[in-house]
C-alpha cells in the first residue's frame, strides 16, 4: 500500500478495501517511526490528522468522491510554508517557531476541498532559502537513499517524506528549483507550474515574482492529479491567472511521436558530473525510442541565470521578510532596550545565517547607488532569458537537461561555500526567472547509487504536455518505482 499510486489508493478507498483512517494510520506509523532519523516533518499531529481522516471516511461513505474527486481520503504532506489554520506554520525558522496560522492558504483550501488528509508539516530550508534543507532551524532532513546526504532543498522534508514512503504525496514550493531539485536528489517526480497557475495566497513569500507552489510525488500521473486540485484562479493573489480549468491528466497517454526535445548546448557543454551525464543521455535515448527527436538549441544567456537569480530573489526577500519584526507575531528577543534594539536583536536571533546573508545581499542591491547596477541589470537579464526561451520554443516542444549538476552531496559538504551551493541551482533557476513550468523525474542512479533527475522545461501552460512526456517515460522505465532499502 505504501508504494501504491494515488489512483490505486483512491480505488482502494472507494471500493472500501481500506478506510482513510486505516490508510492514514499506516503512513502516520511510518512517520513516527522514521522521523527521528530522517527529520522530514517539523510537525506531526496524530489526533488532528486522524480527525481529518474520519471526516474523509464520512464523505467517502456518502459518495463524496463524486464531489471531491479522486484524492478524497488520501494523506498529503505540506511543506511548512503553506499557512494552515490551527497548525504551526514555521517556514523552517525560529522566527515563526511559535506561529499558529489563523487562516488557510489557497492551496490548503484547494486540497481540503478535494478531501485530502493533512499528514503533517514538512521540514524545509528556512524561508525556502537553500538547496539542501540544512538551513532549517529544526535541523537538516536526511536523504533516505543515504542518510549521510542531503535531500536537496528547499522542499527537502516533503521529498524525504515521499521517498521514505512516509507520505504518498506532498506539496512544495519552487523559487529557484526548490521542488525539482529535491525531487531529483530523492528519486521523485516534482513539477513547478507556470507562474500564476497556483495561487501564492497563504504561501509565505520568499521571492514573490519567482515563488510557485507545486506537487511532489512518485510519478507524473500522481503529480497530474495533485496539480488538478491545487491549480486555479484566486482573486486574493493579483498574479494568479484567470484561465479555464484544465485536466492535467488529459494528455498522459499520448504517444510521443514527433515530439521535439531541445537540448541546450550551454547546459550540456560542461558543469555536470559524468554519472549525471550518463543517466541523462540514457534517458534521452529512451525518449528517442519512444518516438521523440532531440534537437540542439541554444539559450545564450543561461549562464547569467544564477547571478540574476541571486540578485532578484534576495532583493524581494529583503523586503518580504521585513514583516518579521517581533511586533505582532512570531519571535521577539527576550531582552532589549529601545525599539531599534528590539528589531536588531529579534532579527539577529530569529533568522539563521543564510536568511541573514540573503537579506543583506537584497538590501545592498536595492540601495541607492547600487540599484541600477544590480537590480535593474538583473531585471534586464531576466527579460533576455525569457527571450531566449521564446526563441528556443520555436524549435522544440520541451527542453531537457539534468535537474542538478550532481547527485546528492553529503550533509555539511557545501555549508561553508554559499557560491558552490548556489551553483547547484544552475539548471533550475532560469525557469523561475522566465515564469516557465519545469518538471523533474527520476532517470537512473549515479555515484553512490544516488538518484539522478531529468528536468523538462515546457512553454507557458504546457504542463499537460510535460506530464505526458514524463508519464510515457515512466511507462517505459521503472526508476520512479524504486525505493530506498528499508531504513
Amino acid at each position, binding site marked *: 500500500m505504501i508504494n501504491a499510486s494515488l489512483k490505486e489508493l483512491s480505488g482502494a478507498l472507494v471500493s472500501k478495501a481500506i478506510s482513510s483512517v486505516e490508510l492514514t494510520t499506516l503512513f502516520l506509523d511510518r512517520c513516527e517511526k522514521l522521523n527521528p532519523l530522517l527529520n522530514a516533518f517539523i510537525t506531526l499531529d496524530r489526533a488532528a490528522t486522524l480527525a481529518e481522516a474520519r471526516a474523509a471516511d464520512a464523505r467517502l461513505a456518502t459518495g463524496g468522491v463524486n464531489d471531491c474527486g479522486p484524492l478524497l481520503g488520501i494523506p498529503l504532506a505540506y511543506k511548512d510554508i*503553506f*499557512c494552515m489554520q490551527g497548525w504551526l*506554520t514555521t*517556514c523552517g525558522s525560529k522566527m*515563526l517557531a511559535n*506561529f499558529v*496560522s*489563523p*487562516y488557510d*492558504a489557497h492551496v490548503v483550501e484547494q486540497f481540503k476541498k478535494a478531501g485530502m488528509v493533512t499528514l503533517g508539516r514538512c521540514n524545509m530550508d528556512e524561508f525556502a532559502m537553500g538547496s539542501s534543507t540544512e538551513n532549517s532551524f529544526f535541523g537538516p532532513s536526511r536523504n533516505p537513499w543515504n542518510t549521510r546526504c542531503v535531500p536537496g532543498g528547499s522542499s527537502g522534508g516533503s521529498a524525504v517524506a515521499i521517498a521514505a514512503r512516509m507520505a504518498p504525496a506532498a506539496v512544495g514550493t519552487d523559487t529557484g528549483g526548490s521542488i525539482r531539485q529535491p525531487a531529483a536528489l530523492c528519486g521523485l517526480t516534482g513539477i513547478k507550474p507556470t507562474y500564476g497557475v497556483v495561487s*501564492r*495566497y*497563504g*504561501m*509565505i*513569500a520568499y*521571492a*514573490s*515574482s519567482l515563488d510557485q507552489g507545486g506537487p511532489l510525488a512518485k510519478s507524473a500521473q500522481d503529480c497530474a492529479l495533485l496539480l488538478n486540485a491545487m491549480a486555479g484562479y484566486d*482573486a*486574493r*493573489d*493579483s*498574479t494568479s491567472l484567470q484561465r479555464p480549468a484544465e485536466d492535467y491528466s488529459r494528455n498522459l497517454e499520448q504517444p510521443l511521436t514527433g515530439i521535439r526535445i531541445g537540448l541546450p548546448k550551454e547546459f550540456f557543454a560542461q558543469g555536470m558530473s559524468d554519472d549525471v551525464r550518463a543517466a541523462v543521455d540514457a534517458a534521452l535515448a529512451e525518449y528517442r525510442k519512444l518516438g521523440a527527436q532531440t534537437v540542439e538549441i541554444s539559450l545564450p544567456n543561461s549562464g547569467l541565470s544564477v547571478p540574476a537569480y541571486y540578485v532578484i530573489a534576495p*532583493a*524581494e526577500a*529583503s*523586503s518580504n*521578510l*521585513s*514583516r*518579521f*519584526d517581533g*511586533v*505582532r*507575531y512570531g519571535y521577539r528577543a527576550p531582552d532589549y532596550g529601545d*525599539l531599534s534594539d528590539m*528589531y536588531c536583536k529579534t532579527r539577529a536571533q530569529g533568522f539563521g545565517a543564510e536568511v541573514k546573508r540573503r537579506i543583506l545581499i537584497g*538590501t545592498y542591491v*536595492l*540601495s*541607492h547607488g547600487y*540599484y541600477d547596477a544590480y*537590480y535593474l541589470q538583473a531585471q534586464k537579464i531576466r527579460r533576455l532569458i525569457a527571450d531566449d526561451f521564446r526563441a528556443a520554443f520555436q524549435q522544440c516542444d520541451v527542453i531537457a537537461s539534468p535537474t542538478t549538476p550532481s547527485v546528492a552531496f553529503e550533509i555539511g559538504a557545501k555549508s561553508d561555500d554559499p557560491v558552490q551551493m548556489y551553483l547547484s541551482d544552475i539548471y533550475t533557476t532560469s525557469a523561475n526567472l522566465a515564469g516557465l513550468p519545469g518538471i523533474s523525474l527520476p532517470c537512473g542512479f549515479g555515484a553512490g547509487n544516488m538518484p539522478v533527475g531529468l528536468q523538462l522545461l515546457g512553454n507557458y501552460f504546457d504542463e499537460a504536455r510535460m506530464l505526458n512526456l514524463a508519464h510515457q517515460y515512466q511507462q517505459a522505465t521503472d526508476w520512479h518505482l524504486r525505493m530506498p532499502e528499508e531504513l
Partner: protein
Amino acid sequence: MSNSWEIVIGLETHAQLRTNSKIFSGASIAFGASPNVQACAVDLALPGVLPVLNKAAVECAIRFGLAVGAEIAPRSVFARKNYFYPDLPKGYQISQFELPVVKGGTLTILVAPSKPGAQAYEKTVHLTRAHLEEDAGKSLHEDFHGKTGIDLNRAGTPLLEIVTEPDMCSAAEAVAYAKALHALVRWVGICDGNMQEGSFRCDANVSVRRPGEPLGTRREIKNLNSFRFLQQAIEYEVKWQIETLEDGGRIHQATVLFDPATGQTRSMRSKEDAQDYRYFPDPDLLPLEIAPTWIASVKAAMPELPAEMRTRFEREYGLSAYDAVALTASREIAQYFEDCLTAAGKEKDLPPTPLPGEGGDGSSLRSMVITAPPRGGPSATLAKTCANWIMGDLAARLNKDSKEIGEAPVSPVQLASLVLRIADNTISNKLGKDVFDALWNGEGASADAIIEAKGLKQITDSGAIEKLIDEVLAANPKSVEEFRAGKEKAFNALVGQAMKATKGKANPQQVNELLRKKLGG
C-alpha cells in the same frame, strides 16, 4: 523681515480617499472604531498574505486627474517603500514611485489680499503628480505605561498624495492652494476633507532665495492638519530661514515638525540621517493599467467642476470672481445658492432698485472685486444679494452654530423670500436681519409670514414719514443747527433719530431724501 527675499513653497497633500474598504484589503476604513478591529490578515501583514488593489481607489485617482486636467497614466506601477516602524506592519509601504497614476495638471487659486487695500489675485498652481498609496497605522504613546500601543485600523487606508511644483510664494498662496484643493477633492467626492480626523493633511516644502538666484535649500514641514497651522508654520519657517541666512548661517535640508503650542518648527531629522527607502516595483501587484474606456466612463459621471461653475456664475449672474469662488467653495454651497436664486426668480416684476450696501459683509467683499462689477438688472442684483446673504449672515450663523450648510434651518426658498422682501422695499435690510433670525429660530414658514406676524412692514407713506421727520427736527434743534453749520455728522444723527422713531420700519432712503429736502429747503 527683509523684503529682498523670495519665498518658494511646494506642497504635498495626503487626501484620504472615500472608498468603503482599504486600498489593498477588504477591511473597512470607517473612522473611530476600537483599535485593531478594522485590521484584517492583510493589514496585519500576517505571513503569506497578499495585496489586491481596490478599484474604487483607482477611480478616485482618475476623478482627481480629470478635475485638474492632468494626464491619467495608461500604465502606472506600485512600488515598495521600505522602512521599519511598528505601525508599518509589512516593513514597507506600498506607494507609487517612478510611474504615478496622475501626471501634471493645474489648480487655479484666488489669493485673498494680505493686508487692507491690497488686491486679491488669481494664480495657477502646477501639479507635478498625484499617486496612490496606503496609509500606515497609528502609534499610541499614551496610556500604555511607558510602552507604545499600535492601532492598525488606519493601516492600508487609501491615500492620494498630491504634489505641486514649487509654485507658491507666500503662506497666503499656500493656504489658498490648500483650501482650493480641499474644496476640489470634496467636490469630486473622493475625500471627506475632515482635517481633524487626518483625512486631509499637508507637508510644506519651504525655501527662500535672493531674486534671480537658484533655489535655496528646502526644509519640509510635516503633517499640517489645519489651514491655520499651515499658515503659521510657513510664516514661522520663512522668518526663521531668512533670519538664519541673514545672520550668516546656512539652511540644512531637514524634515521639521510644527508645534502649534509654541508656533515654532523644529527639526525632526536631517538629510544625513535620511533613510534609503530602497524603492522597487512591488512584485505582488501587476502594473496598473487604465483603459481609455474606463477614463471615459468616469468622466461621464463627473459633476460640473468648481472652475466651470465659477465661470458660469460670473457669466450668468454677473458675480465677481471673489463671490463666484466663495459660492463654489463646496457643491453644497453652490447648490444652496442656485436653489435660492431659482426660488427668488420665480417671483416676477422685480424692481431694478439698487440694493442697500450694508448686507452681510458685502462691503468688505466688495473691496476685493477683481473683475467687472455686476452688470446690473434684476437677476444680477438679486444674485448679488443672495450671494451676500449666503456668504454673510448665513455663513456667520452656520459658523457660530457649527453647522454645515446642508443643516441650515433656513432653507434656500426661505432665504429667497427674505431677499425678495428686501428687494421690493417691504422691509429694510436692517430689519431683514431680524427676519433672518426669526427664520433661523423657526418662528415662521417664510419671510412674509414673519413680517406679517411681527408687523415689520416698511412705512412708505411719505406723509407719515414727513410728519415724523418734523417731530424729529423739532426735538433736535441742536443737530439741525450743527448740520446747517456744515457738520455732515449731524445729518446722520437726525436720520438715526428718525429711523428710531419708526422702529426701523421706514425706508432709510426715503427718510434720507425727505430729511435733506426739509433741511435744505
